[in-house]
């Protein structure tokens, strides 16, 4: 059998599944976003109307949509740097020659990543309990003010950010570790001989060497964080006062609660365009950085 035919035989089934169950629905979603598909249309397709860009325009006039955008942006802008800082910090610590029990700590930091989101959200929901939660107990014993984490609109999103960072920092930590291990140790030895202190080594050797890894990690994390859904769904149902409604949560409600499929798919595409735009921006930014 010649090579191309074998290739199509081996890759064909997978490509067919991806085409049929991913690309096709995505195109259908685009088409749906141009109609006013809703409950009536669900009952009978004769109730479907083509409305062009009306869904998108209506979206721009929906205050909850803007709130969802704002909430998602807060999550990304605060959460991504926090997550990267935690991952990098953990990676640096574990990579240090002075650390003990490295494999154990690596496993311990990574454990939250493999857990089921729902199961740990249930745990954290109780950790955040105003009266019986451990977090408020710790705050109280440190002399700080305990907070109504999940009930106060000001603190619900920070609570979710903290939770998300805990759950995922292990993932990026592993990637940073791999990157750190690629840095040749003679660079550090030479710097030490020159009398450089630890911080200087960090700034002038480690971080620049990690730049490509850092870029990729921030891209991946940002893409993931834009798709915030499970945490608000399980912990706060978008509340309190809609302070934790993310774009995808808004889409889920429009789509699976109210069955406004036209609206919901429009939201999904807006999110996609947004993420695409941000990714392009980052690529251009990084491109310029690499040239320097």
């Amino acid at each position, binding site marked *: 059998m010649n090579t191309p035919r074998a290739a199509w035989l081996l890759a064909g089934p997978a490509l067919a599944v991806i085409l049929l169950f991913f690309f096709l629905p995505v195109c259908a979603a685009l088409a749906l976003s141009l109609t006013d598909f809703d409950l009536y249309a669900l009952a009978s397709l004769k109730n479907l109307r083509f409305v062009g860009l009306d869904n998108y325009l209506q979206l721009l006039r929906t205050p909850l949509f803007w709130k969802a955008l704002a909430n998602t942006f807060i999550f990304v802008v605060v959460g991504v740097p926090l997550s990267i800082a935690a991952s990098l910090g953990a990676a640096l610590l574990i990579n240090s020659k002075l650390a003990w029990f490295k494999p154990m700590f690596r496993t311990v930091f990574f454990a939250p990543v493999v857990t089921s989101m729902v199961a740990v959200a249930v745990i954290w929901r109780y950790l955040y309990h105003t009266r019986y939660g451990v977090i408020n107990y710790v705050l109280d014993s440190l002399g700080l003010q305990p907070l109504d984490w999940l009930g106060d609109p000001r603190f619900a999103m920070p609570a979710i950010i903290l939770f998300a960072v805990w759950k995922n920092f292990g993932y990026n930590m592993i990637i940073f570790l791999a990157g750190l291990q690629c840095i040749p140790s003679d660079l550090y030895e030479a710097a030490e001989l020159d009398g450089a202190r630890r911080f200087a080594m960090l700034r002038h050797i480690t971080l620049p060497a990690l730049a490509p890894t850092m870029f990729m990690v921030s891209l991946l994390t940002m893409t993931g964080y834009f798709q915030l859904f499970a945490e608000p769904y399980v912990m706060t149902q978008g509340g309190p006062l809609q302070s934790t409604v993310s774009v995808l949560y808004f889409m889920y409600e429009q789509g699976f*609660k109210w069955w406004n499929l036209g609206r919901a798919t429009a939201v999904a595409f807006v999110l996609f365009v947004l993420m695409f735009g941000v990714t392009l921006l980052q690529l251009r930014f990084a491109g310029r950085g690499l040239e320097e």
Partner: protein
Amino acid sequence: MKRVAYLRGWLAVAAASIAVLLAACAPSEKGVVTLRFWAMGREGEVVRELLADFERSHPGIRVDVQQLPWTAAQEKLLTSFAGDVTPDLCQLGNTWISQFAALGALAPLQERAARFRTVPAADYFDGIWASNRIGNNVYGIPWYVDTRLIFYRRDLLAGAGFDHAPRDWLEWTRMMAALKRRSPDNYGVLLPLNEFEPLLALALQQDTPLLRDGDRYGNFRSPAFRRTLQFYIDIFRQGWAPRVTATQISNVWDEFGKGYFSFYITGPWNIGEFKRRLPANKQDIWMTAPLPGPGGPGASSAGGASLVVFEHSKHKEEAWEVIEYLSQPAVQLRFYAMTGNLPPRRSAWADDRLAHDPYAAAFRDQLERAKSPPKVPEWERIATEMRLVTEALVAGQLTLDQAVTELDARADRILEKRRWMLARQDGGKP
């Protein structure tokens, strides 16, 4: 090589387990019909017990009850409809009936109800039965009812010189004014800003409907609704109601016990709650009374849940038998004893347990004047807008004129698709 053999082993195990699963998924005994019944909340827990007797007297029918939490129920039902996997019968809030009927999801039941004398329409409270009727068809049989009326502090009223509950709006305003004079830091009535039910109940007391032209347009600019909204907003402006949401009141029963407010517009489940949560020495200070209307005892919203059969069910006859069973007055009284849910049939109310219950008496009276809100699928969205606009009105961001105009504009926008569909129907078919 080892790994390939290992994979093959995996495959065999998996194939075997999938076969077992498929076998386990098809448990059909000969001749026994298994019905899928979806119920929500506490009713879901309790109905299994009730149905044990049913299964004993109907050996050919097995009822598989699946309990759903209220928060996810509407979602799951719509999803099951969208996916063509609806159950045979289910408990449905009666305000959802119009939505599912518009989808063509429910089987019409008036023929069976007429045929079987066991479910006589005349025995049901008129407003409640009507809430299940859309056009000429009846889509649900009422299972239990719910309406809103006033729970009040009769000791505080007595202290202000009143020996009975208010019978109309005028008397009510006089009472609230008197209460406020005696205790300026407390309030007359609690009207939570995040709930639309109290305003809806008051709005339904007017004779003019809330939507006009065959439910195609909002009718909020009508003089009748303006009068209701004026009455509602005056209560806030006079300081007779606190400007709070239900969540800002940490414990509504505590606050009622402390006299923070003297009137509370709520439903039958609170009879049990008040009995449970108010201390023993405070049990004789509260009482229920029918909702006062503009010119005498007024109407209130017709709520509750019905039992419906889905159009796609292959066992409609058997499902109907379950509904018949649960509609028997004796069974409804057992249900009431287990859950506190009030029966929708007058004959059930004749029983001692309900006839002599002082708190339930007001409900018996109110149910004769229960009215349903407009029966369009979009009603819940319109009711939400009603709440949002009223909230802005109470906060002083809108005048009354602006509020009703805005409400009509939003309702008209929401009903646009309905108008288009009705126009098509009228134009396309004779």
